[in-house]
């Protein structure tokens, strides 16, 4: 029961971008195209699930006072191991996702979930939380990216959707465009919530 609850809460109710507003740096950087958003979302989900498992496993041997540095060490080492292994064994995938891996280290969603969830819950629920938060992150990124890519480039997933005559709104591809898009989407989410 609680597994399902932990799994679904990240998607809408506690969406990491729209509701918790974490991980803004990778959001700005990778929501310029849907392709990048999906890549970043998948890579982050993978790391998030694995780091949640790790943190949950070591929660009993980690002294409370130094938990944050321990998490940072665990996450950074884990991301580096993933990065190196991908580069060595699946170079093609690394080429398209490799760019996002270093960005994940500074993604505060990972640290945020370690601190807020994984160090208080068992492994199973931590996995559910990781998957849910990861999917919520991917979904939110894709929504922002859809708007930015269509308005800023006239394409969606590199497919032309707007006619040639459309003059792209470049601002949406730049960092301010991400904030503007995000603002509108958050307002929309809040409006829907109030109606309920």
């Amino acid at each position, binding site marked *: 029961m609680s597994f399902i609850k932990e799994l679904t809460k990240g998607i809408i109710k506690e969406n990491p971008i729209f509701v918790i507003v974490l991980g803004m740096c990778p959001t700005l950087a990778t929501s310029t195209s849907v392709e990048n958003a999906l890549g970043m979302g998948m890579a982050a989900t993978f790391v998030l699930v694995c780091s949640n498992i790790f943190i949950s496993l070591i929660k009993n041997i980690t002294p409370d006072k130094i938990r944050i540095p321990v998490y940072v060490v665990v996450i950074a*080492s884990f991301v580096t191991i993933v990065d190196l292994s991908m580069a060595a064994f699946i170079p093609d995938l690394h080429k398209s996702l490799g760019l996002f891996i270093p960005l994940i280290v500074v993604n505060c969603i990972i640290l945020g979930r370690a601190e807020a969830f994984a160090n208080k819950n068992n492994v199973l629920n931590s996995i559910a939380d990781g998957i849910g938060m990861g999917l919520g992150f991917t979904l939110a990124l894709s929504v922002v990216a859809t708007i930015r890519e269509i308005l800023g480039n006239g394409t969606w997933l590199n497919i032309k959707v707007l006619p040639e005559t459309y003059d792209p709104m*470049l601002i949406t591809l730049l960092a301010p465009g991400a904030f503007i898009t995000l603002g509108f989407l958050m307002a929309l989410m809040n409006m829907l919530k109030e109606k309920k």
Partner: protein
Amino acid sequence: MKMFLQLGLILLAFCMVATALLAYVNSFTKPRIEAIKLKEAADARNELIPDSEFEEITGDLSYYIARDKTTKEIKGYTFTAEQIGYGGPVKTMAAVDKDFKIISIKVIQQTETPGLGTNATLPKFTDQFKGKTLDQLTVDKDGGVPPNAIKALTGATITTRAVANAVKASIDKLRASVSQSPETAALSDSTAALEVAK
């Protein structure tokens, strides 16, 4: 006092385990990654100047002389230029012909802003370098006038500069080292002489 020592030691233990793991992973991934990089570089050279054999020249600027596979005539040179862009070093591989006119370029490594600076890897951007001479490698934002200049990427002028200026500087060095090296200068003469002798 004792508590601080204890916490420090625990943290040290965590870091040691992490370091050992990283060292272990690095030990078996490093050779593979390097092999992949070498292969990619060789593939990229072949893509830039097809049907050639390459000879490496090391020096101030390391470059490759590309010769035609059958006639052994010098077709051009390839080299890798590097300059710091917006998010770290941008590595560009370029091929120039005998007169140092650009045949084509390829951005092989970069960590620029996704969606803006990363557009430097697209043919839409790199194709404009084709046929450019040394003097035409000025970014339009720096006073160049297209078509005799490089048109900057939207939102990524710094990336554009990193590519254009690095290639420009390397061609300069290449020119100097080719004209200095008696071997290559003599080679083009001797191939001409060979033709006559035949």
